[in-house]
């Protein structure tokens, strides 16, 4: 005689521990008054250049800081440190994404209240970082004009879980015959309603609009006394 197996209902998020750590981080960020933006993109889309320019533009009016994740090397941290903002490298070894515990650990000896903005640059990867909440207020996804207009359709999850999209290297758009309308339509197809900024860190085009948005978003978040969690 065979018995039916005994089924035990569980219902828990697989990344429960990460979500709990991220929630605790989000509470700490809110209490310290620091606005947190994470950056995700494929390798070479210009995350570090965009962040370098953002950090330099925010200073000295604001006090920004950055964490930067990479599999190996501290090259990005050295580049970002030229902005004079505090910067720390998180070297992930073989891990293809950042997790909330890595952010928590990297922040251990930083006084959060001494910052207005914290940027967390994820490992260059359009697949893996999407599932891990880092406690950020905004998740920003970058797409460079050299990557092709269909990137959002190929990687819908990362675009769908982002709050802001930035198209980078627009100074190269004509040279690579970038189809702007198609790119914008594809971004909206996988993440309806997402704000999109089009920038060139080389010429500075579009950076002012992004910085205005960032400042306004921080003010709004502070006024609400609560943050918009990344999905």
């Amino acid at each position, binding site marked *: 005689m065979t018995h039916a197996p*005994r*089924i*035990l209902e569980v*219902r828990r*998020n*697989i990344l*429960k521990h990460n979500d709990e750590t991220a929630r605790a981080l989000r509470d700490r960020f809110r209490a310290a008054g620091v606005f947190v933006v994470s950056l995700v993109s494929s390798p070479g889309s210009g995350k570090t250049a965009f962040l370098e320019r953002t950090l330099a533009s925010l200073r000295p009016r604001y006090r920004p800081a950055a964490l930067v994740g990479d599999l190996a090397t501290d090259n990005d941290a050295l580049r970002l440190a030229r902005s004079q903002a505090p910067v720390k490298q998180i070297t992930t070894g073989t891990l293809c994404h950042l997790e909330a515990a890595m952010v928590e650990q990297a922040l251990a000896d930083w006084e959060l209240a001494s910052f207005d903005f914290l940027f967390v640059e994820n490992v260059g990867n359009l697949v893996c970082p999407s*599932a891990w909440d880092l406690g950020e207020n905004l998740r920003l996804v970058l797409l460079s004009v050299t990557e092709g207009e269909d990137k959002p359709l190929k990687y819908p999850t990362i675009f769908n879980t982002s709050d802001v999209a930035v198209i980078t290297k627009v100074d190269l758009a004509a040279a690579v015959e970038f189809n702007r309308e198609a790119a914008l339509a594809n971004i909206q197809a996988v993440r*309806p*309603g997402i704000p999109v900024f089009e920038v060139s860190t080389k010429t500075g085009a579009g950076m002012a609009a992004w910085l205005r948005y960032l400042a306004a978003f921080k003010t709004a978040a502070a006024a609400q006394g609560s943050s918009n969690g990344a999905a």
Partner: protein
Amino acid sequence: MHELSIALSILDAVQDEMDQRGCSTVEAVHLKVGMLSGIVPEALLSAYELAAEQTPLASARLVIEEVPIVIYCSTCQRQQSVPSAQWLCCPVCQEPAAEFVSGRELELCALELPE
């Protein structure tokens, strides 16, 4: 590539549940994976097999239920299934998706225990 991290998180979560409920063996682990979760079920199955080797869960099967993307369309005022992650609009009226009912799950839903 991150399926291995997910697989390790599954092992942790299952072990945690087993400890809490005083179970020593599990025959199968049931997951719900949303089609917008970014997880490839085949890759997760291989990663799980690798991760579970030489653990108490080595013989436990992983059963993955894929969850379709369902949105609530405010224009149609009803839930609608979205066939593709590449076009997140209401299939009836084309209104862009604003509210997701399902599709993002990455959930441990049940454990199958021996008699």
